[in-house]
């Protein structure tokens, strides 16, 4: 009887250990932080997009503020947020494809393209609706190019 109890206790401990290992996400903070930065950028696009589409009236001050914030979020040093092993194959919560870290990855160039587009938008956003419209498209293009190559479907 004692042996059975001991066996059950060991089994339970092993099982608990296993389920803990399954749930473990060593990069929870990093993944939350980078997804947070993405959401922050989406919020700024959510200010500018309706103006571009004509759903909201153009407001130079609000557009400039959003473009400033977008550029700031795009130029943060996020290098510590992308450790190897924080990809979508390794961690359930991650949508970042392993191709980001694979040989031949051009993630750096994609990031640079985003900074360039956001820089141009920051210079243009307060200069009138046509100016904003012309600079908005390339930012959407930079978002899409990187998501196309490096984000898992969801």
């Amino acid at each position, binding site marked *: 009887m004692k042996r059975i109890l001991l066996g059950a206790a060991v089994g339970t401990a092993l099982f608990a250990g296993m389920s803990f290992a399954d749930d473990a996400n060593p990069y929870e903070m990093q993944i939350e932080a980078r997804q947070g930065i*993405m959401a922050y950028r*989406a*919020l700024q*696009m*959510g200010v500018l*997009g309706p103006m571009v*589409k004509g759903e909201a009236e153009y407001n130079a001050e609000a557009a400039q503020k959003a473009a400033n914030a977008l550029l700031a979020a795009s130029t943060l040093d996020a290098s510590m947020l992308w450790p190897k092993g924080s990809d*979508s*194959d390794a961690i359930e919560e991650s*949508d970042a494809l392993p191709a980001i870290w694979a040989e031949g990855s051009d993630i750096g160039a994609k990031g640079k393209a985003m900074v360039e587009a956001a820089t141009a938008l920051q210079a243009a956003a307060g200069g009138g609706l046509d100016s904003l419209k012309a600079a908005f498209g390339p930012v*959407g293009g930079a*978002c*899409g*190019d990187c*998501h*196309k*190559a*490096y*984000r*898992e*479907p*969801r």
Partner: protein
Amino acid sequence: MRRILIALALLAVLGLGLFWAATRPRPIDPDLIAGLVPDVAHGEQVFWAAGCAGCHADVDAKGGEKLILRGGQRFPSPFGTFLAPNISNDQTAGIGAWSALDLANAMLRGVSPEGAHYYPVFPYGTYSRARPQDIVDLRAFLATLPSDPTPSQPHEVGFPFNIRLGLGLWKLLYLRDGWVVSGDLTAKEDQGRYLVEALGHCGECHTPRDALGGPDLTRWLAGGPVPGGTGRFPNITPGKLDWSEADIAEYLKSGFTPDYDSAGGHMALVVENTANLSDDDRAAMAAYLKKVAPQP
């Protein structure tokens, strides 16, 4: 004893004969497209609606490069990895020598000009519903595109899936005439149904597949796992996708979700195609999606 052997041999021959009869490639009746006059301008709309460039152009092609259909993109699956062939206008490397009938056989029946079955990674399960006139128009438009000499690469598919005759059985099981969504549709919803079910091939990813790789039509557009990868294709029925019709149409135009997230993965390629459709066509697709049976 000898008689039994002879009987067995006859049965084997009969079995093979029946198998061949059941699985042989079935080209269309050429009368189906005879006399149809091509409209090149409309062929371009068919080209974007059918999404040819999404798979046959380079994955990072931009602007005019989307029209260089030299193939090479890789499509992993549980059955092996398929490589998109060159369908540029090159006479030997591409399909420059094809007639409209050849294209119609490929799209409506999944049959090559040599009479072999294509793998259903080429979405003829969808295109089989396309109008013959649209295929004739598409043929004329493809003939205006650049030639590229890059040779098509062979699929990386092992036994038994490398025996193409078996695809005849797959076609018997899964090639269906008629629409998935039936009932009373407005003219707009009907237009959307044609764009989604006959050309756009949304269901090729967004409908889950069974063990043989056939679509589970009882779960039409309900999403499912990415074959040969991780993640899931999302459920785009009204049971899950609660965007307005305007939201859906905008996504197909710019790739932005209502929250200003942007399309990723192969869907970004799809948006590069649907961005070239008319607002009217995108609105029709959105209206159709609202008519699909909701799935949890």
